[in-house]
């Protein structure tokens, strides 16, 4: 993708950052979400409040943190508090945006980061929920970033670590999860999806430049709905790429591959 003047990571970060609205709050992890949040702050959303689950609230992040609890996450913060505080803040409804990654993702936005294969006799053990189940349960709008292929976008997750829309319309509420929460967008290297598909399923709403619907279908295990007016995402600008490399991640912690 280098020939396009931007890398896949730069594209994902740029597209994700544009979803973040000014003067809202975002509970982010390190990695791509962190860069998306920082990029949003430095472009269209200077009033974005970035929060970390371990207690950092509103830091002036000097250099990209490599952990969610790293001292960079509360550098000159408005508050260095605790997980109890931040998770309560989220549960009580103060968090606008959450970010999630996934090893497997199903059409309802349910996520697996726990185990591939059987739980008690796993083919591959993954780290588990971490804060993902909490973010996916509490945040008003969750953005999922995943590199999509047929093994990742699956009909059924081996293990549902984090709730998406469970088995469809109304299922979150029936399960007792907070109202007005749940997956908002999925961003992959191919395009952007919302959950406007039938019964709260993933629906392709935008594709990155040069991608076709057939590309998306070939990288998805389930049938995918396509929005009537399919948009093309705006690629990262030279200015965004400069900000990312000069100001946000000069060491290349995430940007280098």
């Amino acid at each position, binding site marked *: 993708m280098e020939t396009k003047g931007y890398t896949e990571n730069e594209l994902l970060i740029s597209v994700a950052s544009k979803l973040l609205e000014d003067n809202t709050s975002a509970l982010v992890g390190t990695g791509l979400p962190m860069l998306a949040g920082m990029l949003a702050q430095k472009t269209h959303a200077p009033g974005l409040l970035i929060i970390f689950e371990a207690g950092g609230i509103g830091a002036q992040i000097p250099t990209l943190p490599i952990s969610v609890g790293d001292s960079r996450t509360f550098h000159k913060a408005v508050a260095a508090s605790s997980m109890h505080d931040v998770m309560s803040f989220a549960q009580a409804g103060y968090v606008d945006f959450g970010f999630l990654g996934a090893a497997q993702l199903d059409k309802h936005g349910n996520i697996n980061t726990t185990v591939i294969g059987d739980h*008690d006799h796993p083919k591959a053990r993954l780290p*588990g*929920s971490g*804060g993902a*189940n909490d973010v996916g349960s509490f945040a008003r709008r969750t953005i999922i970033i995943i590199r999509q292929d047929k093994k990742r976008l699956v009909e059924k997750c081996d293990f549902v670590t984090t709730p998406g829309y469970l088995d469809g319309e109304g299922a979150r509420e029936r399960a007792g999860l907070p109202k007005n929460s749940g997956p908002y967008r999925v961003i992959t290297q191919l395009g952007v999806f919302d959950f406007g598909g039938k019964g709260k399923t993933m629906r392709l709403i935008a594709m990155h430049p040069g991608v076709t619907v057939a590309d998306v279908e070939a990288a998805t295990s389930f049938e995918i709905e396509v929005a009537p007016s399919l948009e093309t995402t705006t690629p990262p600008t030279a200015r965004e790429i400069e900000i990312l490399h000069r100001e946000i991640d000069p060491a290349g912690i995430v940007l280098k591959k």
Partner: protein
Amino acid sequence: MDILEEGKGELLGFHDPDEHRAWIAANKSAALVDKRTTVKEAVERFIPDGSYVASGGFGHIRVAMSVIYEIIRQKKRNLAIAGKTAVHDLDTLIGAGCVSKVEAAYSFGHELRGLSAAGRRAVESGKVKVVAETSNAGYQWRFLAGMMGVPFVAARNLLGTDTLKYSSAKSVTDPFTGKPVTLIPSANPDVVLMHVPRCDKFGNCQIDGILIMDYELARSARRLVVTTEKIIEEAEIRREPWRTVIPYMYVDAVIEVPHGSHPCQMPYLYFFDEEIIGEWMSVSKTDEGAERFFDKYVYGVKDFAEYLELAGGAKKLEHLRRVEALEERMRAPWLDRKKE
């Protein structure tokens, strides 16, 4: 308040609050006594085989690594570990064969750096059992309930997922709203290990920066072993009593261990030693490699100070101080590899 769902995870560290009260009455004291000891003695005395152990801090941050290495040195076995964003601590303990059970919130990963070879190998081969799943907030609130001396805390996470099915939580109908709600059971770990920037000899601890879960975790502990960068005077504690995050009554052992979180970070003092972390991640891809790591850094040294020398000594420590203070750029093998 009907029970809607019961997780089948093992109830690690759960005690009927009455039983916990009886244990506290028999074993803890309000006496303001000098609790200074050595890491060796603290591990011998407070961490028998089979203990349910939780580490303070988070990931590679503020971890009592001198105690972790001593547990390995003393070849403790069959520990059950709170996988509450447990990273280098859990991974080395598993690699050294100390662990038989984990309750996983975040385990078997090193965040941005990659996955844990040792931890995953042990789970995938069946040597270590993940006996329960939960989330970070789930663990946080297990300790909140443990601190409060109540059997559970209500929450709205876990619902609808396999995480709940494999957790030790239950969901019930809330009698106030009629909606489902999760009951997260309390945890009172047998031993909690913490590293703090400063405390007095009685165990009154101050912490700079985020507390992560440590406020509640310290209070939920049965035994609390504290290592500290520096032991300070009682008068300094009493001058700003609102800075005492953990008062002495919870603390069983105090040990001064400068750089005691190494290779993990100590906010405002020193950065991650990515070289040691990277070395571990690389060699732990095989059991033999892990063994060599322990031969070199644990069995081969008599104490933590000697380990620090091996890890690079004063020069390395100064480098880590400068990186933490944003005066120097970090060095990381995993970052170098990216360049190639």
